[in-house]
């Protein structure tokens, strides 16, 4: 029997604002428990929420990046339920008017572009963090009131692979927008997958199983695979799929039942009377658009058009810092040459010296890569000078001048090679007859003549070009 899987994904991402969503307390991961707490986060009687506009701006950028329509007139709503981690007995969220709706992202599945539709993205406040120790539960209010965005897809995802690609895509976008740390292990990104299956010939979807608490993107894939098999088995043995909530147990590699949803939760949503309606003006939206960085997909397109190799694009785009640095010097350099330098020498030395790309003086770096693309310096020299730059060398121009004076220019090198070839007619003949061993001989002569003041790669390249002309 053939089955089809349908997956919808909900992502919660914490926004990296300075303060909390509705209070002035700091939004800071890793503080001592209950350090970043205000009377508002505690939900003390008489307290009122205040809106953090930084969070709204960040959410707006995320909504725009996900190609969403924007609710220019939006409100907050209360979602009412009792739970130990919920200080007020309700969560302030957006039910009626999510900041963004009807959006999409594109993923590449086996070389084809697939659209994953986004149903909505809304803003809400996080709850306390519960810590269980034996029979006791401790509450950490540092997390209470941290701004979250929730991104909900339409049931467009067909399998684990698409789910992983989708999650990676969202993660990358939020990272580039600089609106979230999106670290699953720290809880700043949380994923839930709603998995249902049906027999291929059936029109109606099966009951939805919600899988929560998934600790990594790859585990989302594993959880979906497990659910597919579990549900298929149930259907084949004539049993029914129950609407339920499960969690993914990493050690078991299985989803485990948390609770069966007997009745639908009634959250009694209603507009938050403590906050008035928020109007997002066109100029607001335009400003957000202007402030948005080039996003990874656009960046990939741009780099491809400019002739940068696929592998180098992948390496550069994988790091927001690296690609950001690259874009900042983009107009001042030979981009293909620079992409090669960034993905080789630069990454190697940054790693070795435990430094960040943004610590490197841009002006000096531009001079360095330009000296290299003008063939004024060899790649070995580039690397040596880059290390100096990394260690704070201010006068990179002088360094280049000193080194360069010893180097042969491209034209001089060409003349020299021609002379050497002409003086070794027999070797040339051997080359013509297909004996490539003479290349080494030529190179030896070149290096000897130039006393090493030449880039061997460059010399080799020129030699080959000249030989092929003559041959």
């Amino acid at each position, binding site marked *: 029997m053939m089955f089809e899987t349908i997956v919808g994904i909900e992502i919660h991402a914490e926004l990296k604002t300075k303060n909390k969503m509705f209070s002035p307390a700091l939004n800071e991961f890793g503080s001592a428990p209950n350090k970043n707490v205000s009377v508002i986060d505690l939900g003390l*009687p008489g307290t009122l929420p*205040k809106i953090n506009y930084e969070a709204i701006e960040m959410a707006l950028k995320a909504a725009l990046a996900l190609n969403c329509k924007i609710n220019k007139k939006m409100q907050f709503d209360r979602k009412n339920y009792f739970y*130990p981690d919920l200080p007020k007995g309700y969560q302030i969220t957006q039910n009626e008017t999510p900041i963004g709706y009807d959006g999409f992202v594109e993923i590449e599945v086996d070389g084809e572009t697939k659209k994953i539709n986004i149903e909505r993205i809304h803003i809400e406040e996080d709850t306390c963090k519960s810590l269980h120790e034996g029979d006791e539960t401790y509450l950490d209010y540092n997390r209470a009131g941290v701004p979250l965005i929730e991104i909900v897809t339409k049931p467009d995802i067909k399998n684990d692979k698409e789910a992983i690609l989708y999650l990676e895509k969202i993660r990358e976008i939020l990272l580039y927008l600089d609106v979230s740390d999106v670290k699953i292990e720290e809880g700043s990104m949380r994923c839930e997958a709603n998995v249902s299956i049906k027999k291929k010939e059936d029109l109606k979807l099966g009951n939805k199983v919600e899988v929560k608490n998934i600790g990594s993107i790859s585990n989302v894939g594993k959880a979906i695979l497990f659910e597919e098999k579990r549900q298929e088995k149930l259907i084949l043995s004539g049993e029914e799929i129950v609407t339920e909530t499960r969690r993914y147990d990493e050690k078991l590699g299985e989803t485990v039942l948390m609770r069966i949803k007997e009745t*639908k939760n009634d959250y009694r949503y209603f507009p938050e009377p403590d906050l008035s309606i928020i109007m997002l003006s066109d100029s607001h939206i335009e400003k957000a658009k202007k402030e948005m960085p080039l996003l990874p997909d656009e960046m990939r397109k741009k780099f491809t058009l400019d002739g940068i190799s696929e592998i180098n694009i992948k390496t550069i785009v994988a790091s927001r810092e690296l690609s950001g640095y690259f874009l900042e010097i983009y107009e001042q350099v030979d981009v293909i040459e620079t992409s090669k330098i960034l993905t080789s020498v630069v990454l190697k030395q940054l790693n070795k010296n435990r430094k960040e790309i943004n610590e490197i003086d841009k002006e000096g770096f531009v001079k360095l890569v330009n000296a290299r693309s003008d063939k004024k310096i060899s790649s070995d020299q580039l690397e040596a000078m880059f290390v100096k730059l990394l260690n704070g060398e201010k006068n990179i121009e002088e360094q280049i001048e000193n080194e360069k004076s010893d180097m042969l220019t491209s034209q001089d090198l060409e003349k020299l090679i021609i002379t050497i070839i002409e003086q070794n007619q027999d070797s040339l003949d051997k080359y013509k007859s297909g004996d490539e061993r003479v290349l080494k001989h030529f190179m030896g002569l070149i290096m000897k003549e130039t006393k090493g003041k030449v880039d061997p790669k460059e010399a080799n390249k020129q030699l080959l070009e000249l030989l092929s002309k003559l041959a």
Partner: protein
Amino acid sequence: MKNILNLKLTEINELLKEKKIKPIDLVNEFEEKALSSSLNAFITLNIEAAKKRAIELEGKEVDNLFFGIPIVLKDNISTKNLKTTCASKMLEDYIPIFDANVVEKMEQKNMIIVGKTNMDEFAMGGTGETSYFGATKNPIDETLVPGGSSSGSAVAVAAGIVPFALGSDTGGSVRQPAAFCGVVGLKPTYGRVSRFGLIAFGSSLDQIGPITRDVTENAHLFEVINGFSKDDYTSADVEKFEAKDLKLNKKLKVAVPKFCVGENINDEVLSVFLPTLEKIKKMGHQVDYVEIPFLKYSIPLYQVIALAEASSNLARFDGLKYGYSPNQYDNFDDFVTKSRSVGFGAEVKRRMMVGTYVLSSENVDIYYKKALQVRQELTNELNSVYKNYDIILSPATPTAAFPLGEKRKPNEAFFDDLLTIPFNMSGHPSLSMPIGKCGIKPIGMQVSSNYFEEKKIYSFAIELEKELGV
């Protein structure tokens, strides 16, 4: 000197300035009166701290009208280090760690908070009888209700125990007890007084308001507590009200809704209200009867909107961090159930259940969303009246004060707020002032105006007060 607190504010101020009295004298007088009172107007007296404060003030210059003046607050206004119970077992021992915005404002004026007043539990009730700490009595006649929910605040002022009090008004909780006790109470324009620190009942309706002996002093106290606050997102960013030039410079166009003198209104009330209208006409103002059809939906509107909001606002009282909690319980659900079952009184539970019901997904469209539409219609009607009229006048209450302990059906409890609710729904300012008595029972008149026109209300009320000589 005796009975200083019974003097006019300006007179007390003069005595303080001339150093004939000290703030401590006022606190002492309050203490004596409060302790000998049998009206049950207070839940907590703040004597020790108040005396300490009064002595601190002795070294300071008397720089404003309210310097050293004692005031009492309804016990749902948060006071740092001073119990704030909402007249509930739930918060019997709750001590806030922060001050309400209005408290900060009074402290800036060096006013002295001398006590927290009795009220209906969580402001739910119109007689003061739902208080966990027992009913407050009407000083006119101790067998009568004082009205509510700001019962103790109105009573303390009416009985001359203290000249100033703050209450809160969600459906009439300042104006209605003011009317029953014969004092002046204002429900300001929604957003004009910060709600930060006021323990919420119906967030879209709640306003803190001053209760005083006369209109002018009411305006002065309103000046102290009003103003934009960054702590309250529903706060109105408008020019601050100042109690000056409170004089009418023209005759007013006055609207009286027919509904407010109709079959629902008790003869006791009309016997004072209608002659007052005649006097107002004689004063030269134009009085017209108008139709405002949506007024008749006031009570169902209130039952849906206020109680829906209340069911959510009171959800935070789970006993986990503060408030009543059980010693023995099986699990979290049991803990919360026990905290709330024992901590809340019957009226509060009833209202939360109604609120929960009207918000449930099955009912939200038929009740809550419908009510929002009706609320908008009613507001539109009132706004269109204010296009042609300066003020709307009506009796403050459909009846005068009635005996304590009267058995009423649960839904009859809302009837006392019939005429006050509309202005909470629309957000318009509205003042209740005494206009005379029926027998011994005070009768109040309600004066309402367009948004932020408290000055017009006060100017009219001062003129009328003079005319009536009350």
